[in-house]
C-alpha cells in the first residue's frame, strides 16, 4: 500500500489531505493504522508519507489491533463471535512472523504516546460487544483518547466482529455499527 504505483499517487495528489478519509474493517483497520504509524514514525526503508495537513478522518471498524489471546473477551466471546480462535490463530501465523510483531503491525503494542499528533481531524472507532477483539479494541481506543486523538470509541451492543459487513452480506437490517458509520461519514464530509 505504501509502495503504490506512481500513477496512483498522482491521482491521489489531486485531493487535499483534508478531503481524504482512510479506513477499513478488521485487517483493513490494521492496515489503516499501519499507514498512520508510517506517517507518525517513518520506518527506515519505506517511503515516508509526508502530509501537508491532517486527513479528514480515519474509520476503524473492529480493527485487528491485537494478535494475542490474553484478554477476557477472547475467551468469553469464543462461542458468540463470527471469528473462531483457531482461525484467527492461523491468520496471525500467515500474516506476521513473531519477529515482525511491533507497533506498526500490531497497534495494540504501542503506548498511547505513539499516537500523539495523530494526523486526522476525526477518528471513528467501532467494535462489537460480543466479539473476540472487544477488550483489545476498548483498550486501544483508550490509548487514542489518552494521546489526545479526537476519537469516538463506540462499543456496539450485541454486535459481533464487523457486524455491519455481515448485515450487508446477508441482507439483514443494519445496526448501530452501520448507522454510526454513516452519520460520521456525513459529518466528516460536510
Amino acid at each position, binding site marked *: *500500500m505504501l509502495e*503504490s*504505483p506512481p500513477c*496512483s499517487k498522482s*491521482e*491521489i495528489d489531486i*485531493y487535499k489531505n483534508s478531503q481524504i478519509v482512510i479506513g477499513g*474493517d*478488521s485487517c*483493513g483497520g490494521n*492496515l489503516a493504522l499501519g499507514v498512520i504509524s508510517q506517517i507518525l514514525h517513518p520506518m527506515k526503508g519505506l517511503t515516508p508519507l509526508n502530509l501537508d495537513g491532517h486527513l479528514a478522518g480515519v474509520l476503524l471498524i473492529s480493527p485487528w489491533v491485537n494478535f494475542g489471546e490474553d484478554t477476557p473477551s477472547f475467551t468469553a466471546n469464543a462461542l458468540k463471535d*463470527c*471469528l473462531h480462535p483457531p*482461525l484467527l490463530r492461523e491468520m496471525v501465523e500467515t500474516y506476521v512472523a513473531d519477529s515482525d510483531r511491533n507497533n506498526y503491525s500490531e497497534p495494540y503494542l504501542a503506548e498511547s504516546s505513539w499516537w500523539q499528533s495523530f494526523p486526522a481531524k476525526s477518528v471513528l472507532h467501532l467494535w462489537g460487544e460480543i466479539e473476540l477483539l472487544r477488550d483489545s479494541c476498548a483498550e486501544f481506543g483508550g490509548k487514542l483518547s489518552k494521546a489526545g486523538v479526537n476519537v469516538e470509541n463506540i462499543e456496539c451492543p450485541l454486535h459481533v466482529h*464487523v457486524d*455491519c*459487513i*455481515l*448485515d*450487508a*452480506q*446477508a441482507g439483514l437490517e*443494519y445496526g448501530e455499527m*452501520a448507522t454510526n*458509520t*454513516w452519520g460520521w*461519514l*456525513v459529518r466528516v*464530509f*460536510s
Partner: protein
Amino acid sequence: MPPLDGHIKFLKRCVDEIHKARGEEVPIALLQYSMGSVHSELGLCSIWLTNI
C-alpha cells in the same frame, strides 16, 4: 471471515449515504485485491476507483 461482497455492499451504502447528504459523488480508492468484486457489485455506481 465475511465474503468480500459484504464489504463492497456496505461500502456502496456508505457512498450512497454521503451522496444523499452532500449531493456530490465521493471518489474512492481501494486495495487492488477488491477490484473484481467492486465492478460486479457496484454496477453503474459512478464512483472513481484506482489501484492504490
